């Protein structure tokens, strides 16, 4: 089994953080995992992406030429990556700001209005965690508890207070019917 996911969006949307927490969580469950960020001249407002590969055996390449899952937080990322997605793969789409439909017809599309949902929670910064709630539910590879444990490890002791809002954001995404 190998599952590759590309997370992509604007710099500042927490795209790398999504992948890094996910990688951490699957590591805790004993999988082989690689996390590879884009490391070019990205700046806030520019584009950012990362690839997470999860497998029950050694991972040859951390690059996804044909990812199983695509998490897109902005429109340019949808255009860039949708054609790479494996047939029957899944796109998780930030429907709050992506106003077009994917052209691919052979894949599953999950619209997640992360902007509105994070807005209702009173903190636009947790949009990425809302998205991860839906992602973890639909992909089913790890439990929500594992993800939250990974999140806690990444946030660390210093940001304990941030945990509560992130937990709510994750639950909102997890419980969303998509």
């Amino acid at each position, binding site marked *: 089994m190998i599952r590759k996911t590309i997370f992509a969006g604007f710099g500042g949307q927490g795209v790398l953080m999504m992948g*890094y927490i996910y*990688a951490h969580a699957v*590591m805790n469950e004993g999988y*082989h*995992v*690689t*996390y*590879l*960020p884009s*490391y*070019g001249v990205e700046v806030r407002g520019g584009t950012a992406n990362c690839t997470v590969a999860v497998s029950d055996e*050694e*991972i*040859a*390449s*951390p*690059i996804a*030429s044909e990812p199983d899952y695509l998490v897109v937080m902005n429109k340019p990322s949808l255009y860039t990556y949708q054609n790479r997605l494996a047939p029957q793969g899944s796109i998780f789409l930030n429907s709050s700001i992506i106003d077009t439909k994917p052209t691919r017809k052979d894949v599953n599309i999950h619209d997640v209005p992360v902007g509105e949902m994070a807005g209702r929670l009173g903190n636009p910064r947790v949009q990425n965690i809302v998205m991860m709630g839906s992602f973890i539910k639909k992909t089913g590879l790890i439990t929500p508890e594992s993800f939250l444990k990974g999140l806690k490890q990444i946030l660390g002791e210093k940001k304990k207070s941030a945990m509560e809002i992130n937990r709510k954001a994750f639950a909102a995404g997890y419980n969303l019917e998509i």
Partner: protein
Amino acid sequence: MQGNRVIGEAAIRAGCRFYAGYPITPQNELTEYMADNMRRAKNGTFIQAESEIAAINMVLGAAAAGARAMTSSSSPGISLKQEGISSLAADELPAVIVNIMRGGPGLGNILPSQGDYFQATRGGGHGDYRTIVLAPASVQELADLTMDAFDLADRYRNPVLILADGMMGQMSEPVEFSEPAPRQYPESYVLNGRGKGKSRFIRGLILDAIRMEEHNWKLYRKYQVITQKEVRFETFWTDDAEILIVAYGTAARIAKGAIKRSREMGIPVGLIRPITLWPFPMEVIRSFAERVDNFLVFEMNTGQMVEDVQLALGGIGKVQFYGRPGGVIPTPAELAKVIAHHARKK
């Protein structure tokens, strides 16, 4: 944990107490990690130098004064350090130099590449010398080989180069740090004041021809010992292989993926992965040639290590090459196609 940071953590755990560097992508997180973490090491020193050249010469000074010292850079920066590396070899000083390779020549780009094989394994700087070159293929191996690099540098009083690429540096994987062995480095090599003992000196400038020749032969004998004792490699699925891939670092990882695919199609292919690029596993490759006559060298360049494989085989067997330079990372599927093509041609 990210590869670059893992190198930093492994170095500190191994007792590295002096780091000097100058920023360059894709190894910046290593410099950053040292800036953040060297302070928690007792007597640790971090210096962001004014240039790569300054950094390597600071490392030379720290090594002479008895510190476990390290510097890091990426391809163009490593070129700048060559004079210092040559001096470390001449002065017989231990130091660890990390090269997180990027596309070249010139400033090239910042993507993963294996273009610096020749520079790394042929000494790189001027003069008749060698550096031990370690080529990790996973984040775990970055940790293990970084610790080993300090021990090897001390044991042979010679610079050790860790040769990885942007993918190794940027990628995160799970890692466990082993317990480092206590340092064994004789006080008599350290320039910290002779006290009442014999004068100590370190010298790379030897104007007398006969004495310089003696020094060259002394270094040569040391390199012979390293060649005999320190070769490291991994074999993968070689037992019944009729085609052998030779690849290192990132390319070797991709090769493993390609081999799995090829095996599913019934192609008997295996891998020899040199872990030390110098000393190169010449004997190992030669011994495989008694059974296998079909070699495919795969590198992320236009063909560098392939010359060592040819040298090892000395004209026996067929050596083919497949390479992608410039920061392109081929997929296991792509390499599997090359293997299939290669198998048919046979």
